[in-house]
């Protein structure tokens, strides 16, 4: 159907080689390059997993349940995103905004659960040298020597999942801009303050929250330079990014969590 529809475009226009508009091709090219970033990180993790005999298996039943709920959040967000795209092509602006907001809520749920998972692991002693020490916590027995004997575990785990969490965060911001435009900037600033002031100084999220501030500044500049009403093509392109984030998690979840689970 797609190929026949391509030829329905009036003959005065030169048909696109890829049969679609340039914004979408641009996003696909970005996603292809980004898939190599995640591919390299996943390979680095897998390389360490295979080549290290005493690879830690820190994910107990509670962690697996937590990660499963996170996965359900992401999968559901992909469904709501598809429904947002559908509402946008049907020119139903209200439904489009509501489905985009539903997608953002699922994304925020994922980030909160992931943040909780990270905080628990850091409190138990699985940490990176760059993270501040958690006061009043002693490392769990299984993590006492991990940072010395298998330092690549924490490095690859936090590197891979941190990169993914950053992508989800930027995805939520992207959808917020498409759904609410300028109205999203004050919301983002409030979120930044809540994340910054609501997390303890020793948490990596205390500093990571500044990503929201940087994003608010960048968005303000973009919307000031080029204010526009986002149409169905913009929603579809944002959806491509969001589905990609979901897609990457479909590999991180089994390879990182399920393959390093310790079910007693």
């Amino acid at each position, binding site marked *: *159907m797609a190929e026949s529809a*391509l030829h329905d475009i009036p003959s005065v226009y030169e048909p696109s080689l890829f049969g679609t508009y*340039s914004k*979408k091709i641009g996003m696909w090219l970005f996603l*292809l390059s980004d898939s190599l970033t995640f591919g390299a990180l996943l390979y680095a993790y897998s390389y360490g997993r295979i080549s290290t005999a005493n690879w830690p298996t820190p994910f107990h039943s509670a962690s697996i349940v937590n990660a499963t709920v996170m996965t359900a959040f992401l999968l559901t967000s992909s*469904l709501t995103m598809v*429904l947002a795209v559908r509402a946008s092509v049907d020119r139903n602006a209200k439904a489009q905004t509501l489905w985009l907001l539903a997608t953002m809520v699922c994304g925020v749920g994922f980030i909160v659960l992931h943040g909780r998972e990270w905080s628990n692991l850091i409190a138990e002693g699985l940490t990176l040298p760059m993270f501040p020490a958690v006061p009043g916590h002693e490392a769990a027995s299984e993590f006492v020597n991990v940072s010395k004997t298998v330092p690549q575990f924490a490095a690859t785990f936090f590197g891979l999942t941190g990169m993914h969490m950053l992508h989800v965060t930027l995805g939520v911001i992207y959808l917020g801009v498409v759904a609410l435009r300028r109205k999203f900037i004050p919301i983002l600033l409030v979120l930044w303050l809540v994340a910054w002031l609501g997390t303890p100084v020793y948490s990596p999220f205390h500093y990571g929250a500044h990503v929201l501030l940087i994003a608010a500044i960048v968005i303000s500049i973009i919307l000031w330079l080029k204010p526009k009403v986002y149409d169905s*093509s913009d929603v579809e392109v944002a959806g491509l990014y969001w589905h990609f984030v979901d897609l990457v998690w479909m590999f991180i979840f089994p390879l990182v969590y*399920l393959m390093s689970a310790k079910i007693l």
Partner: protein
Amino acid sequence: MDTTQLAIEERVAEEHRHHSKPLFFYVWAALLVMTAIEVYLTYQNLPPVKMLTILLGLSFIKAALIIGYFMHLKYEVSVMKWATICSVVGCLIIMTIFFFPDAFRILHIGVK
């Protein structure tokens, strides 16, 4: 924006209007079921190699469903499908060729 882009965008939007909405719910349900199977297998304490094979198999099926239906690649023209899939798969094959023989060699020698 030039008229060609607008014409293409409208044509793509028209295609989207023909996609069946229930299909998206079926795909979502299938993805959830496959995730549940993965978690169930984790609790069965299968041998690592068998476990990895099954998990990767399910992950590729899930990825194909997301790319095909949610990202609409199934409905794109052939050039688009081949260009995207071949470039990613090609790069991942190159990474595999370079990384994994060495990892298995280290595993065989033992970690010093």
